[in-house]
């Protein structure tokens, strides 16, 4: 089953403008896949993400999310239920300063019964590793914890697809690790995850990745296919991971590793294998 099917999506904020936020985007995400969408600021990542959550309806092209046609107005709320979205700034996502109140927000919106709400809240908090935080205030949490609560708020509605729109960009390294670990856990539970980021290191975790530049797709493939292509990364305005850079610099010095490493572990392994 395909979680997302996008065909020739095109969108511009000012109608009839030549300045397109996204331009002729086509891709398919299979259920349970972890996608990373990368590009520099203003490349159209966020516009694309908002399409997937029906915050923006497609101007041109076709989009099917979780089997629902995004062009049909009647599907908007169904899509938002099936496809949750977590945003960049953890402070701007809470509707209540009491955690369980905030988590019940989405549930009440989608008509979950009052009896079921406490249980759903509990399960969602456990899933992000914040069990027992129901009655706490959001104001005394660290950035990473806040973002995990925001994820729990989306998770409580039990969506099949989760979109993370630069959720780590305002966090410190510890918070980032926290949130990335949470994503990994969700992926193991079979959720489809689409992560938008400009940290190339985060893309290494993904099954497939997409490079966006000026609203156009420059490349789609596995990290193993995309990341070693330094020329492509440069065109997108990204810098390659250190291991990839080292691979080419070593090659230039006459040392060729068996295959291009993506992580430092693989790089060290590669050096060992020269023996």
């Amino acid at each position, binding site marked *: 089953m395909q979680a997302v099917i996008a065909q020739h999506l095109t969108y511009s904020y000012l109608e009839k403008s030549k300045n397109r936020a996204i331009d002729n985007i086509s891709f398919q995400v299979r259920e349970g896949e972890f996608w990373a969408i990368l590009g*520099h*600021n*203003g490349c159209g990542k966020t516009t694309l993400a908002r399409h997937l959550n029906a915050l923006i309806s497609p101007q041109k092209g076709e989009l099917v999310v979780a089997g629902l046609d995004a062009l049909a107005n009647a599907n908007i709320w169904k899509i938002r239920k099936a496809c949750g979205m977590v945003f960049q700034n953890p402070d701007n996502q809470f509707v209540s300063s009491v955690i369980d109140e905030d988590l019940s927000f989405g549930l009440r919106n989608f008509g979950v019964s009052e009896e079921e709400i406490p249980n759903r809240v509990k399960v969602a908090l456990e899933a992000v590793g914040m069990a027992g935080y129901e009655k706490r205030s959001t104001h005394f949490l*660290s*950035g990473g914890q806040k973002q995990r609560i925001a994820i729990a708020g989306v998770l409580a509605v039990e969506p099949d697809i989760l979109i993370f729109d630069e959720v780590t*960009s*305002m966090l*410190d*390294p*510890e*918070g980032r690790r926290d949130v990335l670990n949470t994503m990994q856990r969700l992926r193991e539970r079979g959720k489809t995850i689409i992560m938008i980021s*400009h940290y*190339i290191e985060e893309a290494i975790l993904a099954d497939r990745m997409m490079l966006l530049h000026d609203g156009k797709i420059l490349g789609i493939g596995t990290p193993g296919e995309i990341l070693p292509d330094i020329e492509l990364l440069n065109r997108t*305005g*990204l*810098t390659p991971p*250190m*291991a990839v*850079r*080292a691979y080419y*610099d*070593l090659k230039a*010095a*006459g*040392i060729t590793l068996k295959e291009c490493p993506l992580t*430092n*572990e693989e*790089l*060290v392994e590669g*050096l*060992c294998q*020269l*023996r």
Partner: protein
Amino acid sequence: MSITLDSVFYTYAPGTPYASAALKNISFTVEKGEFVGIMGKTGCGKSTLIQLIAGLLTPDSGAVLLDGKNINDKNYDRNELHRKVGVVFQHPECQLFETTVERDVAFSLKHFGWSKEKVQSAVERALTMMGFDYEKVREKSPLEFSGGEKRRIAIAGILAAEPEVLILDEPIAGLDPLGREAFLVLVKRLNEAGMTILMISHNADALAEYAERIVILKDGMLFRDGVTREVFSDMDELQKNGIGVSEARQCAALLAERGFDVAKDTICYEDLLKQMIAIGRGQQ
């Protein structure tokens, strides 16, 4: 211009449940022209520290000295402090408010008594330095620009005053890779021209590459203060305390684990690469 903190103590909101980020007995001196990186976990007191240096907070006890003069003395000239110490806060783009870019950048020059020509040339210089075409942007509203551009305009507003000390709080957080690189190169250039730089960052790679000295705070106390190379060489201890080290340093540690001979003070990519080439050649 040298900055000295002499056994500074500070408590936030004493006696309330919100009491936080206290500084305890902080002493160190930054000499003119240094590039100092400041690290520490969120809530360790980094931001308090720079606010004390900028004279925005007054220490409970101890003194903050600029060129040997206590900035909290009654007869210390605050205007001089604001002129000599430029502070780029986190998300500086939030400070913009004027109707045109030119007026906003010139805002901090208002009280200097400079001539119109001097103000204009300072504004032009600062905007050009931040990569703008002065004539093109001067009449535009600063609010119309994109996030990254706004940040550059705001920073131009600080640089226009030609401060001797530049304090930066997480200046590259949220920028994309190219923006990050360009900004760090610019800061390095300013530093080479004699400006003292204090930069708070979580980005250990950036600090490893550019800062000469690292100060690390932990729970409001000075945890490390030393040459970048030496501070980062103690990787295990830092990581145990929640401080990340540069990627090159981590990679060097991985190599050492596998029995390769790698110097402990390998913190930049260039150093690492040289040693990896040596290792590779040895292997072959």
